[in-house]
């Protein structure tokens, strides 16, 4: 088990290192950031001075190495736009994103679990069909469109909830959280349903029934435990979908999170910000995937021994 965890940690680090190179190259290719910082009247000498001051005149390899060296200690340089340390911006925005993601994940689990399991148990009934419709709709509705419609109807016309921002406490979480969780609900519910259907038909579940185990125990304890395996397998992918969706959702709902910071950074060519956001996001995603893999190995001993 320790060897398994160790090799997975190593793999994550290698993946992050490769990603940092890609990000560095792409960020340097986004065009000259000085054109955005300096006033229109700037002379070529001003450009040269600014370039020297920001270290943009050094060779790329040198720039990259110093970038990585500082990034490891949490120093991502200053935002070209906000003229503040990038790490401060990340520290401000990251908790907002994490809170929203946790809220969305909570909603998804609360809806997907009971619906997915019950749909399998009561297969072919109205409940099952409703669950299927929710699942298919969840995968077919464009997130940003749902967001716009919700903002317009619930926040605009009905004035029930705030349309954007995070200033109104719990109420401000509902719309973005629901929009963000929508897609995950669909996927998770389908996986649970198909997993449960498979497991409910297996020998050990039949044995449990024959032994006289109460039906709800058979479903929620015996069967669910094994039906969870595919859900855990996909948990890492769900998380990266959540991160992706968050960029759109945070933009529409003016949510002060990492996703919106990415969007702002990219539209103003603020490359220290872009690098920091992409690397932070990738590190979080890698960490979650690592956790998922370890959890997976704990739940299903077959994985551990296969390697």
């Amino acid at each position, binding site marked *: 088990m320790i060897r398994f965890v160790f090799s997975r940690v190593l*793999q994550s680090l*290698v*993946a992050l290192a*490769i*990603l940092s190179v890609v*990000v560095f190259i*792409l*960020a340097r*290719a*986004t*065009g000259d950031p000085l054109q955005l910082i300096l006033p229109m009247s700037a002379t070529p000498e001003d450009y040269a001075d600014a370039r020297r001051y920001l270290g943009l005149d050094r060779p790329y390899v040198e720039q990259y190495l110093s970038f990585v060296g500082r990034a490891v200690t949490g120093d991502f340089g200053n935002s070209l736009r906000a003229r503040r340390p990038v790490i401060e911006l990340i520290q401000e925005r990251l908790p907002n994103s994490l809170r929203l993601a946790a809220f969305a994940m909570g909603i998804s689990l609360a809806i997907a679990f009971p619906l997915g399991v019950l749909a399998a148990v009561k*297969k*072919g009934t109205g409940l099952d069909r409703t669950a299927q419709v929710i699942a*298919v*709709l969840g*995968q*077919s*509705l*464009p*997130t*940003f*469109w749902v967001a*716009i*419609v919700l*903002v*317009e109807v619930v926040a*605009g*016309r009905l004035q029930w909830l705030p349309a954007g921002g995070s200033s109104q406490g719990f109420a401000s979480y509902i719309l973005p959280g629901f929009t963000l969780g929508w897609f995950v609900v669909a*996927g998770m519910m389908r*996986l649970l349903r*198909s997993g449960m259907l498979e497991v409910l*038909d297996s*020998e050990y579940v*039949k044995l449990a029934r024959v032994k006289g185990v109460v039906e709800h125990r058979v479903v929620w304890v015996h069967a669910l435990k094994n039906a969870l395996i*595919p859900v855990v397998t*996909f948990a*890492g*992918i*769900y998380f*990266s*979908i959540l*991160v*992706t969706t968050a*960029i*759109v959702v945070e*933009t529409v709902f003016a949510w002060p999170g990492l996703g919106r910071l*990415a*969007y702002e950074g*990219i*539209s103003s*060519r603020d490359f220290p910000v*872009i690098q920091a*956001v*992409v690397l932070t*996001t*990738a590190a979080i*995603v*890698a960490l979650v*995937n690592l956790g998922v893999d370890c959890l997976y190995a704990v739940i299903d001993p077959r994985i551990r021994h296969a390697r």
Partner: protein
Amino acid sequence: MPAEPLADGALTLPDVAARPDPAARGRRVPVVSLGIIVLFVLVAILAPFLSPADPGEQSLRNRFKPPVWMEGGSSKHLLGTDRLGRDMLSRMIWGSRVSLAAGVVTVLLASAFGAGVGLVAGYHGGMVDAVLMRATDATMSFPVILLALILAVTVGPSFTNVVVAIAVILWARYARVIRGQVLTLMGLDFIAQARIAGAGAWRIITRHLFPNTLNTLVVLVTLQIGYVIIVEASLSFLGAGIPPPTPAWGSMISEGREFVTSAWWVSSLPGLAILLVVLAFNLLGDWLRDTLDPKLRQL
């Protein structure tokens, strides 16, 4: 050691194993979905002939005309006009081209590359497999939209960038699934026999392994076209997709966003179009999966 293909079935009680799943078997061909897809493809191909007006033609005097069934609507603009007085119906018709092209091209690129990686990894195993699968995992966990946004500002937003950005991430899912299937196939007798008969790696991969993964590929491709259409629309919505003069459903939604209260049709109609088309592809994909490859799990 070749695995016994019947091992699973032999253990289950015969009466249960023989009972067909009524819900899966009884599902009929999804005619409505197929109809929507055929219509969508035809509209995209025949756009120049179907479009009643030039999608780029502006007429500020005619801005925000409502659809024909509403008060103030005219038969000249069946679905109304947008903020520049451009005909909504024509823009929707031309917009279908972008969605269809993005969906099909991206998925074809991603599936060809992904299936190739999956076949090679599964066939060779060992180090080759380990390296390829780690690359797959790393790719899979990278947020698609982030990459597309970076590309859009790096090289400028364009159709090619959207396709490349999505395909660069999407191939990984194909690689994963196909590799899993190949691992199972490799344990079967017919591969061993092909080897004994002297078939080389290329022949085994192309003639024996690939045809056996086709069903899965077809299911995945169908299910992912819908996903790609949504991602492309999200990118156009964020301003990182197809650049402005070309009508795309995502950017139409974005343009109409500020006017949802006064002119709901500008962003609602393209939204509905996306929903219908993606829904049709997903339902068709579900049906294909139940019919061709019931064991396949897919997001």
